[in-house]
């Protein structure tokens, strides 16, 4: 019963989402109304690591922690792109990950969104010009929102996703 009493003692630790600063989040493509209406309250996210150094991954796992708790917005992380509505892509697209990333994009049913997380996703960051990098994420698949930062805070990633949905709810 030690666990139960610890649970009761700590109580709910989820913090309300602060107003994210706008220059980190760049909306690239206008999301059509039907997708926004659908995904407003229920969104399946498939995280794709296209060659990232895992800095962004650690922040993304922060999303599922009790403090940021992305589930309260109706987001839940899914195992297969077939179940997903939004691809959370991190890292520059390496040569090996170019085909798998495109296959993942094709495997996701429409309507679908793509949020590219981290500087590498937009400008290949420190890995720019490397022999192993095929290019930034938007050169492989169409991207809706970029979230800058190396790595971006979980709050910013959350704002990025919410911006993609234009719901912007706190």
């Amino acid at each position, binding site marked *: 019963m030690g*666990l*139960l009493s610890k*649970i009761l003692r*700590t*109580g*709910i*630790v*989820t913090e309300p989402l602060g107003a994210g600063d706008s220059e980190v989040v760049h909306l690239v493509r206008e999301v059509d109304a039907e997708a926004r209406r*659908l*995904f407003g*309250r*229920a*969104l*399946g996210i498939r995280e794709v690591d296209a060659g990232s150094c895992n800095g962004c991954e650690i922040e993304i796992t922060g999303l599922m*922690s*009790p*403090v940021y*708790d992305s*589930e*309260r917005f*109706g987001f*839940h*992380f*899914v*195992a*297969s792109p*077939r*179940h997903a*509505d939004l691809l959370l892509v991190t890292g520059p697209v390496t040569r090996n990950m170019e085909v798998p990333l495109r296959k993942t994009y094709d*495997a*996701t*049913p*429409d*309507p679908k969104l793509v949020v590219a997380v981290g500087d590498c996703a937009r400008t290949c960051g420190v890995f720019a010009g490397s022999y192993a990098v095929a290019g930034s994420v938007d050169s492989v698949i169409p991207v809706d929102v970029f979230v800058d930062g190396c790595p971006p805070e979980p709050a910013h990633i959350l704002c990025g996703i919410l911006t993609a949905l234009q719901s912007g709810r706190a």
Partner: protein
Amino acid sequence: MSPWLLGPVQAALALLLAPGLVGAIRWMKARLQNRSGAPPWQPYLELRKLFAKEVVVSNNASWLFRAAPFIVFGSTVAVTLLVPLLAVPLPFDGAGDLLVVVYLLLLGTFFLALAGLDPGSPFGGMGASREMTVAALAEPTMALAIFALAWSAGSTNLGHIAARVLATPTEALAPGHVLAFAAIFVVTLAETGRLPVDNPATHLELTMIHEAMVLEYSGRYLALIEWAAALKLLVFFTLLGNLFAPWGIAAALTPGALLWAVLTLALKLLALGGVVALVETHIAKLRLFRVPELLSASFILALLAVTASFLLR
């Protein structure tokens, strides 16, 4: 309300409550993990979204892949016609008993496993193989627990069992009943893919059993399968609730009694959901080859239940 209308009303009610039950369990688990979590009605929104989404089907899949969701959903809904959700004089009680319920659920598992194999991905094959292994090992426990119940109630038809326990309240505390309840609870955790056997919230394909089979489904097919899985959980909870503690079930089909029956049913489902949430917060997933130990323990519980019902003959 004519008795024949009770069947479809029960089915509709079950369809309505099932996603809510899964949502409530997720909400309780979230609260036990100290986070606010999604609201309990989140599964309804997910189903609405899935029904509107596009369907992507693998090029290896055959017609069976597209027919399986309807068979799985249909067989589970057919079970809700047999299970005493609201009232005891069931119109369809003569059509099927507890064995028919078990075999209808097996029909759903059979076609879901085939649909898992169809696209030809290794995950689907792995999920199908493990799901059928667990289902096969849970059968003997289910059979013995059914007969422990049926033996003390004088019939395997669910209406009779519930009516019998309703008539003699001390029957519910008989050791045979309590042991059968424990055995069926373990089988519920195994059959509906809850924690000790299979983790419903996992993302790692290699540890999945139920979800590995449905990785290939999307759009409305996935919605049907998710809804059928929630319905199966509701059916098992109703079996646990209304067969072992049938108080609150309407004896007459008056609106007042029915309303009271819906209320007590919801309460029972929440209570059982709470127990499952607590169990899932406290224990970790069993390795696949420790699952037979859990199922043989539940078989022993069922065996003792039958023996106990001998002794009190």
